[in-house]
């Protein structure tokens, strides 16, 4: 490290010495050799380029220790993950289906020659609202439809544009190629094709999956983003012969941006050609109504660096789905679930997944206003996970699994706050709600939500002097309410004129000190693997106080912010 410091200082030193020398030698040096002059400009640029290189070197050396919380260099973390055997997930394209119905005013005879139209796979179309490109994903090279009045057909689509890069084979064993994209674009996680001299080679996850001389290759997430392609060594996979042309076709995706949840009609433009019976190009949107038939969803962004660091300890290198953790790992890698938990009961692995609510809520909604259904999986989403598990890993024989939505456990929060005198209530309240919303949207806890987590988040609000929080659990309130009602009913059933002893017999197991869903001492939220705690009202507590599910208004609600006085703003800096 001393050498690096020495060299970076020396470069600046040399530059200063040159400038000092020039100033001494020439009396106009201040004008001719200032930073604004050509030579000054060149020297500054070269100095900056040099410093950038040294800075990168310093960062690279400092950040090899991944346990350091400040180690956040994406390249280094990704490289370490790849060497450790984890294949970081790339962005996943949104997929869905379009429905095309012949318009009532279309004339088949005059508008569609031959009454047929032919559509090619990977035909590019554009969504007018989000301006992103989508490609047809019909599974065959072309499909021809014979058009009749009111004819309807369906087109599966995938967000992204197909791109191709070619490389020349050098004929060596285990030859490898790197495909990268510039900017925020990413190579899609599943859609990569490798063609060698015109033949499609199958793609595998590991060299050992390839058979001797099999036309196959390994496709992995690249060290620099994009993908890396590795060919075999005869024993495991065929070696492309020298000078073979290797074509790599891949989908460029914008991940979660490609999700479309509104079903606007005729919001599409076909960029590539659709051909009629006589080979002429037709404008399909003039003749057909284009509707979204199934939601275009499941688009997700690539794995974040924080996620890669967190998932490394449970990385599974053997592609076998056996243990519950391996199921959780595979599904978490998809990136579309904010909360994944897996547990085994009587030989069946139960996978509980909550969709990443951020992907499904509209921009103005927050955690408290998003539809409650967003926390559950519908049948279509479950079938997609099922398909992914079957293609993503080798499911252990005799192992059964079940995909479930989590059981929602309702909580409300009471927040006691002392703000500074110069802050407004509205500002403090909105900041508190924002912090809580962000925390629960990114919930990563799997069995306990410590109060400390939230207090830590809320402590960053500068307008607050002191704060405490309290959770109220619906399960707990229901338990006490139900048993208290039972006791009251029992008491009322006694007639004191006939029976003098009206004390309750201890027939039930009711214990008024029981606390369900909360830590009885610390007050943290506790939950089971199949549960997901949510902060949402819409229920009564044991004293019949109603907590509204609406986050606005003065009534008791999901989050109740209770002001316990103010502290003079002069004390802001006395911390």
């Amino acid at each position, binding site marked *: 490290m001393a050498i690096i410091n020495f060299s970076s200082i020396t470069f600046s030193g040399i530059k200063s010495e040159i400038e000092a020398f020039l100033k001494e030698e020439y009396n106009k040096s201040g004008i001719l050799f200032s930073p604004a002059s*050509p030579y000054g*400009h*060149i020297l500054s*640029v*070269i100095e900056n*380029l*040099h410093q950038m*290189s040294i800075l*990168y*070197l310093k960062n*690279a050396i400092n950040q090899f220790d991944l346990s350091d919380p400040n180690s956040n260099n994406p*390249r280094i973390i990704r*490289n*370490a993950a*790849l*060497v450790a055997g984890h294949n970081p997930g790339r962005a996943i394209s949104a997929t869905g289906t379009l429905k095309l119905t012949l318009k009532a005013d279309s004339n088949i005879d005059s508008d569609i020659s031959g009454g047929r139209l032919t559509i090619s796979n990977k035909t590019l179309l554009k969504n007018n609202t989000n301006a992103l490109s989508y490609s047809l994903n019909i599974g065959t090279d072309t499909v021809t439809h014979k058009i009749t009045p009111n004819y309807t057909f369906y087109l599966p689509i995938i967000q992204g544009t197909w791109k*191709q*890069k*070619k*490389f*020349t084979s*050098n004929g060596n064993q285990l030859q*490898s*190629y*790197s*495909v*990268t*994209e*510039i900017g925020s674009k990413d190579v899609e996680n599943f859609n990569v094709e490798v063609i060698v001299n015109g033949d499609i080679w199958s793609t595998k996850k590991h060299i050992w999956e390839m058979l001797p001389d099999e036309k196959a290759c390994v496709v992995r997430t*690249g*060290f*620099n*983003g*994009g993908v*890396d392609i*590795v060919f075999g060594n005869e024993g495991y996979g065929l070696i492309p012969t020298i*000078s073979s*042309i290797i074509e790599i076709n891949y989908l460029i995706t914008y991940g979660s941006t490609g999700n479309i949840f509104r079903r606007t009609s005729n919001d599409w433009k076909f960029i590539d050609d659709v051909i009629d019976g006589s080979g002429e190009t037709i404008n399909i949107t003039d003749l057909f109504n284009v509707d979204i038939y199934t939601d275009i969803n499941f688009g997700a962004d690539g794995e974040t660096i924080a996620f890669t660091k967190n998932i490394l300890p449970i990385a599974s290198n053997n592609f076998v789905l056996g243990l519950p953790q391996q199921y959780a790992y595979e599904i978490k890698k998809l990136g579309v679930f904010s909360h994944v938990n897996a547990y085994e009961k009587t030989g069946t692995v139960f996978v509980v997944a909550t969709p990443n609510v951020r992907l499904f809520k509209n921009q103005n909604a927050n955690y408290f206003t998003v539809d409650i259904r967003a926390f559950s999986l519908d049948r279509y989403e479950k079938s997609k996970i099922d398909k992914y598990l079957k293609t993503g890993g080798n499911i252990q024989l005799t192992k059964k699994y079940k995909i479930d939505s989590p059981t929602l456990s309702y909580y409300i929060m009471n927040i006691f706050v002392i703000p500074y005198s110069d802050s407004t209530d509205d500002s403090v309240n909105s900041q508190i709600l924002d912090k809580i919303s962000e925390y629960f949207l990114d919930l990563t806890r799997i069995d306990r939500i410590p109060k400390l987590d939230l207090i830590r988040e809320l402590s960053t609000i500068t307008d607050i002097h002191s704060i405490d929080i309290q959770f109220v659990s619906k399960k707990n309130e229901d338990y006490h309410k139900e048993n208290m009602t039972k006791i009251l009913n029992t008491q009322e059933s006694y007639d004191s004129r006939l029976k003098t002893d009206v004390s309750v017999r201890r027939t039930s197991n009711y214990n008024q000190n029981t606390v369900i869903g909360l830590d009885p001492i610390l007050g943290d939220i506790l939950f089971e693997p199949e549960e997901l705690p949510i902060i949402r009202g819409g229920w009564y507590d044991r004293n019949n106080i109603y907590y509204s599910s609406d986050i606005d208004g003065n009534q008791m609600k999901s989050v109740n912010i209770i002001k316990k006085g103010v502290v003079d703003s002069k004390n802001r800096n006395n911390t």
Partner: protein
Amino acid sequence: MLYERKQLPELLYMKHRSDTDDDFVKYDDKILDNSLTPYIFKNDMMFGFLKRLQPLVSILFDHMNSIKNWKNYIVDSYNYKHIK
């Protein structure tokens, strides 16, 4: 530049003759062209000087690429074409 220098030009051509990957920056052709104001290059003497200086500056980046490729066993350690 180091990547090209370490092999015979004819072999380099043969190894890449079908390549279509052009999403990269060739430092020895571009680094000063892209970093300095274009007005400086209008002076003939300066143009010649900078064009000779450019490969020397690019070597800095080529050496840095070997650090960027430190754990990357997929490509040659001096390969700069895939580095963003």
